[in-house]
């Protein structure tokens, strides 16, 4: 079939239109993927922050089980104290930090120590996500267990 002079270049225009359409769809897809990557990163950061907070509680549990009077050098009259530790990966890069607060006001009377650990992802200047765990540790002889464990709380101590 022979094309008339008026139909010349028809395919070229059609190809151009479809190319523009594909470019628009592709840009839309890129936008969706960007949002998807951002949400994945946020999920990873929140899981990481939770793991750091758990590390803090485990850390103070071990310290108190080794030494009920931890930290040595602080008098009994000081009821609350806190410390912060950095967590590094196998490449010695900072994963994040955990801050542990300890309230030992009821250690003698009720045999309970209140603990709070906040995990923060990234270094001090790159805090992107935090997670706080509140716990109550029984210091009764033979019952050195966490009686209360509340995750995702606002700071209480």
């Amino acid at each position, binding site marked *: 079939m022979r094309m008339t002079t008026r139909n010349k270049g028809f*395919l*070229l225009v*059609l*190809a151009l239109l*479809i*190319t523009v*359409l*594909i470019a628009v*769809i*592709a840009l*839309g*897809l890129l936008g*969706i*993927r960007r949002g*998807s990557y951002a*949400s*994945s990163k946020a*999920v990873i950061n929140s899981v990481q922050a*939770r793991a750091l907070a758990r590390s803090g509680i485990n850390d103070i549990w071990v310290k108190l089980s080794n030494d009920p009077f931890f930290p040595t050098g602080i008098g009994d009259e000081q009821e609350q104290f806190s410390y912060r530790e950095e967590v590094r990966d196998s490449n010695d890069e900072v994963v994040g930090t955990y801050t542990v607060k300890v309230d030992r006001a*009821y250690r003698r*009377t*009720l045999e*309970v120590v*209140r603990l709070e650990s906040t995990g923060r992802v990234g270094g001090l200047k790159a805090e992107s996500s935090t997670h706080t765990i509140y*716990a*109550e540790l029984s210091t009764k002889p033979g019952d050195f*267990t*966490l*009686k*209360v*464990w*509340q*995750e995702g*709380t606002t700071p*209480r101590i």
Partner: protein
Amino acid sequence: MFITFLVLGSLVYTLKQAGAVKSNTRTMDQMSEVVHTLLLIKADVRGALNILSPTEGSSSSLKLVRVDPDLSFAQRVDLGVDDNPFETREQETVLYTLNNGVLRRRITSSDGSTRAERLLKSSKFQVQASKNPRLLTVVLEVETSRVKKSHTMKVAVK
């Protein structure tokens, strides 16, 4: 002709990718719900004063007692007859159960008031308790559009 096929081929490829992105996003949303539910169960078991059911063997529900998180420590010390911060009146019961294909979390306070949460659609919820070591194995089965996916989690009981 070559240009036409090239363009149409690109269009098909782009649309396929769009379908994959949509499907993966839906799967990720479902997975997030499952992970959130499993972490919630894990946190509840971790903070439980006592696991009421199951104590041994398997069960289709999980019942535990924990300290009421709405009460601050100071309130718990002041409210009770004695200073014990773990009195019965300061506790609440949490029950996970499958009801009409939906996993629910029902919380009953010591005053009898209850509140229920719908967690996610699930076709199976099973909790297996073992005594030595003290472990709970939680199995959660979720149906996607094509397949059933089973998620298992082990939680240590103090």
